[in-house]
């Protein structure tokens, strides 16, 4: 069968915020660019982001600047972040947001007509540029319309709108292809990508020296997730298979309050402000259980009685805050233990009740979108009854190891930006830092890819053999009449949810690894009945490979890291260890591609001027004695 073939300078995989921003940059630098995405153009998961894009513009509080933002980001990530990325992010986010405005975005405004900014957890000043609670949609639409604007320009100039930037929608990439000839270095260089059209199953091949991965996260390996079906870890897996490395894969952010019922919306977020506005968490016995879960280090800051907690909402100066407002990971863990102890709600969550706490009109005024969300999706009136909530897999901090300045991965020609890249957020991401991450590093990846192509002596070539292999792999499930891929997928989701979820134990993670091993074998045998035209069973069978690879990385890294930090909680190692902070876990594939291996790598120390932005008192909670001594020496100079 003939394979459709296209030649581009840069191929961007993924059309979310990072992918579109990368493509726009590559095109603006004169590169012929393709955007390949699994969904329709403009439907990417970025639309789900509500809060806003964090950028220290100082529109609301003029004391805000990049240094404060940098500090907040590092604190949020428990100092495991790639500090160079955090620095670039804090410095460049304002420009990226302003640029959107010039492309037509309409953010909410301050009184003096600037972009309004809102408060958010972990950010010292109001910092999130937003449009109500649909900022992600605004971002996607603006970038989408920017792509269209560039196409209109090209149409005027060249008579062909798609001459320099073209969207291949509902198209899945299954393999990155490399040129292994010695001219391109020992590990070879990226030469293109292979995939298929979802709508008709026809195969497609891209010849391209530079590929930008912008495929988002991995949430679909878990049962309960706020992520969409696209989040099957494609980019993570493609990078691994191409020889690149993943870092920080053990860090997964679980949001404490996702909807648990009805089934169709299980995992969808319930915003933190429900608790901020007075909502309380109760178990099936009607008990406000969070009082039992205040960790020792927080005892001083949190109320010990319900009366005191309730007074805090009106008088924050003289009372301590209620324990419902503990950090996300603490709350998620507490809910998890209540459910495990059999005190959960019928559908496996706990109750989040605001109906008995505020008058109905007040709830509607303060939480309009939540009121609407529960009304429309669950037929639950939150002014009359309690919501059922439970932790939901929300974001993966880990991803492709990249160079901070160019977003280049270790494989020549491979770039990554957004959730699929790792390092920027350390062990835990702050709300609002995701959208700005997409913009800052999306642009850098596009620019990085463009300059890589400029410097290239000769274009790498795809070998026929690689194409044959990729084709065989893609078509294999159609030719098998094995197990239903949905069953393998469900089993994987259950395994990850139960054994490598919020709380991890050595035995459980080991058990998960055994289970993943078995699932890998079963996945070899899954079959997909039906034709190649829009066959979801076939698509899932192919996605399974990616989810299994990623799950293996998560489990293996989670097993190795013997401490609890941010999005990684070990029941058997509850404390945070300064020694472990200096170490990053690196996942890569064995040369035969059969297994993931994890190695430790030393985290380079923070640049002098950056570490001096912090107080000694704060640093000593995180860094080793030796690092502290170096800091003191620095301070004396």
């Amino acid at each position: 069968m003939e394979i459709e073939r296209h030649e581009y300078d840069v191929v961007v995989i993924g059309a979310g915020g990072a992918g579109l921003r990368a493509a726009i940059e590559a095109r603006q630098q004169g590169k012929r660019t393709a955007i390949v995405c699994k969904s329709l153009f403009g439907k990417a998961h970025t639309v789900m982001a509500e809060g806003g894009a964090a950028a220290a513009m100082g529109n609301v509080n003029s004391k805000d600047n990049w240094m404060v933002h940098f500090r907040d980001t590092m604190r949020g990530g428990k100092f495991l972040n790639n500090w160079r990325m955090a620095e670039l992010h804090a410095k460049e986010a304002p420009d990226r947001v302003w640029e959107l405005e010039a492309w037509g975005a309409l953010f909410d405004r301050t009184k003096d007509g600037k972009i309004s900014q809102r408060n958010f957890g972990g950010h010292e000043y109001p910092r999130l540029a937003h449009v109500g609670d649909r900022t992600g949609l605004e971002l996607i639409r603006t970038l989408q319309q920017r792509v269209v604007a560039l196409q209109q320009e090209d149409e005027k100039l060249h008579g062909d709108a798609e001459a320099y930037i073209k969207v291949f929608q509902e198209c899945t990439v299954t393999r990155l292809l490399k040129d292994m000839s010695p001219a391109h270095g020992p590990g070879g260089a990226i030469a293109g990508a292979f995939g298929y059209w979802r709508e008709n199953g026809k195969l497609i091949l891209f010849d391209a020296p530079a590929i930008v991965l912008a495929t988002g996260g991995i949430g679909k390996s878990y049962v309960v997730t706020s992520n969409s079906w696209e989040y099957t870890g494609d980019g993570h897996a493609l990078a691994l298979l191409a020889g690149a490395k993943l870092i920080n894969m053990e860090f997964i952010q679980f949001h404490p309050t996702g909807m648990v019922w009805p089934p169709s919306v299980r995992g969808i977020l319930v915003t933190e402000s429900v608790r901020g506005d007075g909502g309380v968490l109760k178990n099936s016995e009607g008990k406000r259980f969070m009082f039992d879960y205040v960790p020792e280090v927080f005892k001083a800051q949190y109320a010990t009685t319900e009366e005191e907690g309730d007074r805090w909402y009106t008088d924050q100066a003289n009372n301590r805050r209620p324990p419902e407002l503990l950090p996300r990971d603490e709350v998620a863990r507490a809910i998890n233990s209540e459910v495990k102890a059999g005190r959960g709600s019928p559908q496996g969550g706990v109750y989040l009740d605001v109906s008995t706490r505020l008058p109905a009109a007040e709830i509607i005024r303060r939480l309009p979108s939540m009121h609407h969300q529960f009304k429309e999706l669950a037929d639950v009136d939150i002014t009359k009854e309690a919501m059922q909530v439970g932790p939901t897999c929300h974001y993966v901090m880990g991803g492709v190891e990249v160079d901070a300045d160019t977003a280049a991965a270790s494989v020549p020609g491979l770039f990554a930006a957004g959730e699929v890249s790792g390092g920027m957020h350390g062990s835990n991401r702050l709300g609002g830092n995701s959208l700005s991450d997409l913009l800052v590093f999306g642009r850098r990846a596009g620019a990085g890819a463009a300059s890589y192509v400029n410097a290239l002596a000769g274009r790498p070539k795809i070998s026929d053999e690689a194409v044959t292999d990729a084709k065989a792999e893609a078509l294999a499930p159609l030719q098998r009449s094995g197990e239903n891929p949905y069953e393998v997928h469900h089993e994987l989701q259950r395994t990850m949810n139960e054994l490598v979820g919020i709380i991890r134990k050595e035995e459980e993670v080991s058990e998960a690894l055994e289970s993943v091993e078995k699932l890998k074998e079963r996945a070899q045998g899954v079959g997909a009945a039906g034709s190649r035209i829009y066959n979801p069973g076939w698509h899932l069978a192919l996605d399974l490979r990616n989810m299994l690879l990623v799950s293996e990385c998560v489990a293996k890294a989670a097993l190795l890291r013997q401490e609890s930090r941010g999005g990684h909680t070990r029941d058997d190692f509850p404390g945070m260890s300064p020694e472990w902070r200096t170490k990053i876990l690196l996942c890569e594939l064995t040369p035969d591609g059969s297994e993931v291996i994890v190695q430790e790598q030393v985290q380079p120390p923070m640049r002098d001027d950056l570490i001096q932005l912090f107080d000694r008192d704060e640093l000593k909670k995180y860094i080793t004695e030796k690092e502290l001594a170096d800091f003191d020496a620095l301070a004396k100079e």
Partner: protein
Amino acid sequence: MSYKAKFRVWRGEGGEGKLEDFTVEVNEGEVVLDIIHRLQATQVPDLAVRWNCKAGKCGSCSMEINGRPKLGCMTRMSTFTEDETVTVTPMRTFPVIKDLVTDVSFNYKKAREIPSFTPPAEVKPGEFRMQQIDVERSQEFRKCIECFMCNNVCHVIRDHEENKSNFAGPRFLMRIAELDMHPYDVADRKDSAQEEHGLGFCNITKCCTEVCPEHIKITDNALIPMKERVVDRRYDPLVWLGNKIFKRSSSNS
């Protein structure tokens, strides 16, 4: 609380196809998209349906349920009685690829025909100053999740394929209104709205507003105001008379 529901789902490829009957389990709290997925997982693994966020935010799962354009993820099964047959068909206005999946490229084509946001050349990023009340109208239109159900339901193209080349559809006429009302947009959009994008085809029967899952008042807030802006330009008899007398072309006033 679960029961067996009767479903009729249109199945076929490239136009040819028929309604097929299924009996399928329905549990409490489920939506139509869940049931389609259950069919996929248990009876017809290759049943094609387009979906993404499952929370009414991406606009992928547009379909017609009992003849009405709806998002599958936002149509709760509790809105039907247990003995009611639920008929699910693809959107009618667009060519069908397979089963419930249609080729919506018409919409992307139209999107590209609308000239983009055109700010004054001298305003640099970061210098935009706009009041909240000045951006609110356009913000309402930017809530659009591009489910394309307004374009699907609009009889101008739903019932008249031949109008497709001359009519942008409610979605993109609304886009024109959004830009025309933007405080910084300097492009002239009134004549082209009428002449190139077919605003005159709209007979304001409001079906676009009726089906909009985001509850955008497309007709009242975008299409009619845009029609009024066109009236300012083209159908104001005083302006027309002036143009006749002073022999000006009516289109470059």
